């Protein structure tokens, strides 16, 4: 039995220690009770109800600033029929929350939320049975409202009275019926986000705000070249700084610890260290030659219909294009931060990691400690959009805390984040198609050159620098997704050439692979539409048999006021302009994807202006139609779609990690500029809701279509194909010049 005192939301968020007290001990009842279960098949792993009827949700999926905690609250409120405000969410604590997998891939509602829904449905069934017994009524005569079960005869009992502070001690019941969506009152409504009032008044505790008693401040001193070896350190160079506690050196891992943050920063800057020379990066000017020359260690065929090479060989006309997509950084506004504390040989580490259960394994491995001796607790950080530096900061803090025997907070500086977070790898894609004499596409053959690996644990930089036990495999994310296409051409082959290596430690950034692959695929589809004098929407519809896809594209045509066209706008402009083209060209382009071919459908239209003189692209308006099945929170979905559009306009137009032979050189916002307010377009969204269907993800899919929609719009405007992200003005000018 576990007794739960009424938790104060802020207290719970402030420190995991308080949560442990509530959850693991029963005050006044003597000996500590069993640890809270985190087993994936137990209702108690996901839910608790306190004596006052307050509900605690334990979620392994974490809110990365997407509004997830509000959406999960709605799903649980719905199944249990308790008010949203009576629910508290505890996230990503390895001692308290079940391992529901990494918070990535637009899976938090689709998978995590659905597990919670099942736990809540199981709990509801058990509570109703208990209530029926208690009230002496048949279950069919009971209704629940606001956490109180009432009978038709007027008797009632609250959840708090039924549970009496105890555990459910129930296995998750996959047959427990979820509520009929026709009766939903919380799901499908735009409940306001629970975290926003605190975030706009400076009350919210981000990871970067969190402090523990007796804590010191650490900073890391990374090598000036990625593979450099630390030759010597002159500790006397920081001797004069008041507050410096220790210079920590473990192999090539170097850091400073001080009693105050500014002393740590000053010491990290002043510390004199000498490093070996290392120039192992490729020449950026020859990046794509480098990628093409990298050893292919295996080939994966992601779809194979008919005989694409034969169809291409026999085609009356062939199209061949190469697309490339630059290296991107996550670019979190708040650099990564973590706190590590050892007590009795056991580590507690607070971070904004997407994957506290995995991080726990990684830190235990690094320390050669049993996993049981490591606890990782999630606190919201700045948005990460994938695996950024949070886990690395956690490893940094762990090594520094172990070295000084006191809790250490590590806050990365801007250059640490831009220079050392793992990167979205460079992606090179060759596309070939064959068209027959009647104008029908007979063959499609695509080849993707991407690094090996999947979406496992990304190597911890601190462990690598200190040469401690660690996982070392490349983990770029599930980057082969959306390499295969939904369009039904008679002959299709899509092949992944897995490269042995890639210039930087890779990881996933929002819509990993799906964005790069959809960029190439949807631009090439536009090339085929233009080559066959087809309207881009009609061309797609002609090759799609999926009614949800068709509905989406038809609604996109309506939303954007799409005018059917057999040839691009620039043809008409050129025909009427004679020699003198207007200095600004306008056009619109379309892109569509069924995410991973199995879930969320999304299509978009970009309206752009292209300055022929400067090569600058301005996205004026962006239309999105989005079908993610059952919508939990419409405004939350809109917020995510807007974010996807704006962040990806930034990535497509501007972003590119720069480097010399030793290290990243785009180490701040001047050298890695992102979208600003003066470049923000109008965004119009049409949400297709399917309340009777399962919910799918909305955190990423829209991002996948943005680069292609812009590139296709620039083609419409100018006749120039942009096949290389980012679409920087010099590239645009060159493309227009050659159009």
């Amino acid at each position: 039995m576990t007794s739960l005192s009424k938790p104060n939301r802020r207290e719970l968020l402030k420190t995991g220690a308080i949560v442990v007290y509530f959850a693991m001990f029963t005050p006044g009842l003597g000996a500590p009770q069993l640890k809270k279960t985190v087993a994936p098949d137990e209702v108690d792993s996901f839910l608790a109800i306190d004596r006052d009827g307050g509900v605690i949700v334990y979620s392994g999926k974490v809110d990365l600033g997407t509004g997830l905690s509000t959406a999960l609250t709605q799903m649980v409120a719905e199944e249990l029929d308790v008010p949203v405000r009576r629910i508290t969410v505890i996230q990503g604590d390895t001692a308290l929350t079940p391992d529901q997998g990494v918070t990535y891939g637009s899976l938090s509602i689709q998978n995590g939320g659905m597990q919670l829904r099942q736990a809540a449905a199981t709990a509801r069934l058990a509570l109703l049975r208990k209530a029926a017994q208690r009230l002496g009524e048949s279950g069919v005569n009971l209704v629940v409202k606001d956490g109180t079960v009432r009978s038709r005869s007027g008797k009632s009992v609250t959840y708090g009275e039924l549970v009496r502070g105890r555990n459910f001690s129930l296995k998750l019941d996959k047959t427990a019926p979820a509520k009929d969506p026709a009766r939903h009152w919380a799901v499908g409504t735009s409940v306001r986000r629970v975290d926003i009032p605190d975030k706009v008044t400076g009350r919210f505790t981000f990871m970067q705000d969190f402090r523990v008693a007796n804590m010191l401040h650490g900073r890391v001193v990374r090598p000036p070249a990625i593979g450099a070896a630390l030759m010597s350190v002159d500790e006397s160079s920081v001797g004069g700084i008041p507050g410096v506690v220790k210079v920590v050196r473990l192999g090539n891992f170097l850091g400073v610890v001080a009693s105050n943050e500014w002393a740590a920063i000053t010491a990290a800057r002043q510390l004199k260290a000498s490093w070996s020379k290392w120039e192992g990066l490729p020449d950026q000017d020859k990046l794509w030659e480098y990628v093409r020359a990298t050893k292919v260690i295996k080939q994966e065929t992601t779809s194979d219909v008919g005989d694409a090479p034969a169809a291409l060989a026999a085609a009356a006309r062939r199209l061949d294009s190469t697309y490339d997509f630059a290296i991107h950084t996550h670019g979190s506004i708040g650099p990564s931060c973590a706190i590590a504390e050892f007590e009795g040989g056991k580590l507690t580490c607070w971070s904004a990691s997407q994957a506290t259960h995995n991080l726990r394994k990684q830190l235990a491995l690094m320390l050669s400690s049993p996993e049981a001796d490591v606890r990782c607790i999630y606190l919201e950080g700045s948005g990460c959009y994938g695996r950024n530096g949070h886990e690395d900061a956690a490893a940094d803090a762990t090594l520094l805390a172990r070295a000084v025997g006191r809790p250490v907070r590590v806050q990365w500086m801007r250059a640490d984040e831009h220079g050392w977070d793992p990167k979205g790898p460079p992606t090179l894609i060759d596309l070939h198609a064959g068209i027959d004499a009647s104008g029908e596409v007979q063959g499609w053959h695509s080849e993707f050159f991407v690094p090996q690996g999947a979406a496992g644990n990304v190597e911890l930089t601190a462990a690598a620098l200190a040469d401690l036990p660690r996982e070392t495999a490349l983990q770029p994310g599930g980057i082969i997704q959306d390499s295969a296409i939904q369009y039904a051409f008679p002959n299709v082959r899509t092949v992944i050439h897995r490269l042995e290596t890639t210039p930087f430690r890779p990881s996933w950034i929002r819509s990993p692979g799906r964005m790069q692959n959809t960029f190439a695929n949807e631009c090439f589809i536009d090339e085929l539409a233009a080559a066959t004098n087809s309207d881009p929407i009609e061309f797609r519809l002609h090759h799609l048999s999926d009614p949800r896809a068709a509905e989406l594209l038809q609604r996109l045509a309506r939303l954007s006021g799409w005018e059917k066209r057999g040839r691009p706008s620039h043809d008409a402009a050129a025909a009427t302009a004679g020699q003198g083209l207007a200095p600004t060209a306008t056009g619109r382009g379309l892109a569509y994807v069924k995410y991973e071919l199995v879930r969320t459908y999304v299509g978009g239209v970009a309206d752009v202006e292209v300055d022929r003189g400067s090569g600058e692209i301005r996205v004026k308006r962006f239309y999105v139609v989005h079908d993610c099945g059952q919508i939990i929170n419409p405004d939350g979905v809109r917020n995510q779609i807007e974010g996807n559009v704006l962040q990806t306009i930034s990535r497509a137009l501007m972003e590119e990690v720069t480097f010399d032979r030793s290290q990243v050189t785009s180490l701040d916002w001047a050298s890695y500029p992102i979208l600003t307010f003066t470049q923000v377009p109008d965004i119009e969204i049409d949400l297709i809701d399917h309340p009777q269907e399962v919910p799918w993800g909305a955190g990423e899919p829209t991002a996948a279509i943005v680069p292609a929609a812009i590139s296709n719009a620039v083609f419409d405007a100018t006749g120039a194909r942009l096949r290389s992200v980012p679409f920087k003005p010099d590239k645009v000018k060159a493309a227009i010049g050659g159009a």
Partner: protein
Amino acid sequence: MARSIAITINRRLVHLTVDDPNMPLLYALRNDLGLKGPRFGCGLGQCGACTVHIDGDAARSCIVPVGSVDGRKVLTLEGLGTPENLHPLQKAFIEEQAVQCGYCINGMIMQSAALLTKTPHPTDAQIRDGLATNLCRCGTHARILRAVKRAASA
């Protein structure tokens, strides 16, 4: 050398002893005074997450030496309004749900508050220009623009 500094922070006079007067104001606000509104983003004055008002003007506290604000008035997000008594901008950001991760929002609100003080009824272009050097990575820009517009017309 340690130096004593007096600053009026959120309408209250505080005395600080600092080892290094060149330490940016941000660290004094966050570590010595326990304020969480102003945030560390870049330390270079490029992103705006650390924005506060100094004598009524928006300033990047990550590059303002604490020694230079001796005797001056500093206002942070906490001093702009409270949950019980929200500033019109804070209210508008809630109404428009103009937050994703929220890390940049301090800067968005503080920069806009300074803009609205000088230009109570800005045009859309003036709002965009006013926020031109405040960075948001989540892509909340459209909502932020609507929120500032809403606050200006309140």
